[in-house]
């Protein structure tokens, strides 16, 4: 007797070929795969606004004077800004912005106080990560209103005339990455993640339950496939479908919505693979848990809702309560949004998006382990 191999590439290939043929013949599903991205693109062309507070802010203090501190205090009391870091250089702050660890960088230039007292209207610099305009818009607006009165207590006596002038100093705002604050720039790339989450999870979610419902599982099991052969065999063909969707949305982003593409498309296309696999793996895991196709669809929605609500797609991530952020951190979509916005709008390289990639990778691993554990080799 020849021992049963743990994993046979030949049998995996048999599964892949079979799934490919079935996919090709299933016109309705295939049409849905193409139709959903197009419809979503139309629907989400507009922005969804909200008013997040306590946004992570770093400060570069080149001038440690009471005036500077008073201004920072005023900024803090607005409620929109949380000073989480003090950086030592412009470069360090820029890096934090690029990695998305902070939303704002406030720079108090050297000689700020001196120039202020001389009435030279020094510049206070606020750099904002404006990839998601909804997240920064209100914060920036509040700042403009607040700064006029910030120094009223400091500027008294001989300096009182400074407080009454239009503005004792100038607030200069540098919106980075999306200077015009166009929401489509943020929505359209995000949509790619949303569409992939919805369709990829659904399609593999049906994969094993369908075999059970149609009775074909009995025959399949009698041919003794290993769990991984079945699971991977059902995932592989749909990676291709995922890429078709990605290309559709990228084309629309470029030519319909004029989204700028700063970073490397090749890098993006390579990284998208991890995200597609993550969603297919979630689906296949649901498929091993659900008893029938209806349950699988319900589970898909159960996964889809938090993904769309808590990932930073619908509402700015930093505007969400802490517990919601914790949930969001688990979801692949959250990390993918950071990747795609980072690469497309900020020109992030592999180094900057790596933390997001491995977190999705970890998610895949956990999903596959659960799927293999839950996969039943008998009909019981």
């Amino acid at each position, binding site marked *: 007797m020849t021992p*049963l191999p743990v994993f046979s590439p030949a049998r995996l290939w048999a599964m892949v070929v079979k799934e490919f043929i*079935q996919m090709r013949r299933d016109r309705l599903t295939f049409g849905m795969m193409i139709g959903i991205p197009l419809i979503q693109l139309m629907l989400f062309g507009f922005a969804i606004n909200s008013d997040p507070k306590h946004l992570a802010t770093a400060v570069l203090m080149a001038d440690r004077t009471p005036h500077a501190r008073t201004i920072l205090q005023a900024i803090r009391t607005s409620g929109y800004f949380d000073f989480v870091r003090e950086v030592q250089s412009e470069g360090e702050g820029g890096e934090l912005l690029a990695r998305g660890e902070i939303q704002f960088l406030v720079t108090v230039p050297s000689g700020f106080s001196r120039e202020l007292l001389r009435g030279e209207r020094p510049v206070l610099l606020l750099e904002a990560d404006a990839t998601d305009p909804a997240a920064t818009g209100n914060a920036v607006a509040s700042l403009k209103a607040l700064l006029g009165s910030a120094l009223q207590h400091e500027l008294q006596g001989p300096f009182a005339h400074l407080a009454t002038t239009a503005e004792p100093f100038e607030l200069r705002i540098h919106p980075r990455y999306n200077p015009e604050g166009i929401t489509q720039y943020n929505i359209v790339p995000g949509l790619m993640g949303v569409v992939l989450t919805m369709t990829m999870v659904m399609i593999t979610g049906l994969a094993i339950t369908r075999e059970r419902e149609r009775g074909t599982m*009995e025959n399949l*099991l*009698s041919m003794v496939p290993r769990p991984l052969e079945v699971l991977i065999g059902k995932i592989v063909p749909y990676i291709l479908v995922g890429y078709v969707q990605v290309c559709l949305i990228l084309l629309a982003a470029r030519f319909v919505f004029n989204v700028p593409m700063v970073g490397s498309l090749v890098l993006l296309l390579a990284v998208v693979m991890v995200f597609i696999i993550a969603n297919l793996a979630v689906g296949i895991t649901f498929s091993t848990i659900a008893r029938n196709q209806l349950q699988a669809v319900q589970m898909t929605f159960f996964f889809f809702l938090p993904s769309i609500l808590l990932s930073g797609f619908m509402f700015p991530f930093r505007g969400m309560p802490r517990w919601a952020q914790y949930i969001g951190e688990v979801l692949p979509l959250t990390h993918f949004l950071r990747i795609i916005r980072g690469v497309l709008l900020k020109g992030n390289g592999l180094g900057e998006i790596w933390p997001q990639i491995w977190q999705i990778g970890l998610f895949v691993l956990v999903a596959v382990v659960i799927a293999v554990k839950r996969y039943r080799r008998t009909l019981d």
Partner: protein
Amino acid sequence: MSGELAIDVKGMTKQFDGVIAVNAIDLQLRRGEICGFLGPNGSGKTTFIRMLCGLLRPDGGSGSCLGFDVIRESEAIRKEVGYMTQRFSFYEDLTIAENLDFVARMFSLPGRKAAVAESLEQLGLAGRRNQLAGELSGGWKQRLALAACMLHRPQLLLLDEPTAGVDPKARRDFWDRIHELAGAGITVLVSTHYMDEARRCHNLAYLSYGNLLVHGTPDEIAGDATLEEVFIRLTEASTDNYQP
């Protein structure tokens, strides 16, 4: 393969939610034997066959199938068994040829293309090779399923109502083929509701409410009466016993 017995199991038992579907069945089949598996609907035939090839985990019982332990080596058994399911379980959205090809690949059959072509030829399906399985008539589906489960040249055939819905001529051809295979040393356990088919088996096993009521040759069982009469009587008697 060890021993002369292809199937040798004792006390095979299966419950579904506390309801006994198969109750402590002992069964032995010699190699090359054709055993007819009879019994009214719901008597546990399908459940028993599924346990033999490891698709259902028995709640009790032990034994061997083709020399492999039925509990521990069920996957090894499945590789050597041709199991034809009662319900058509091939892919309706694949063509006949694609279905056979899939099976051949799953068993890593050497000379896959030739084996598939030969099997199509033998079952008279060559002309319909590119027809979707789902578009076939009931009888043709059965023939496809049969061709597929024999593709990897198994030592033991477990056929669950293989001729249900098949026309008389095709049924006779089928039974001729079964005898041919048995002559070559292949063991066949075949469930059926047709008494003329039961007549053509070496041995019969009759199940009712999960119990094996009779086991013997058709002549032993029928005596002067017809098989049909005997089984209807058996069914009625056991139904009375089990009525609350």
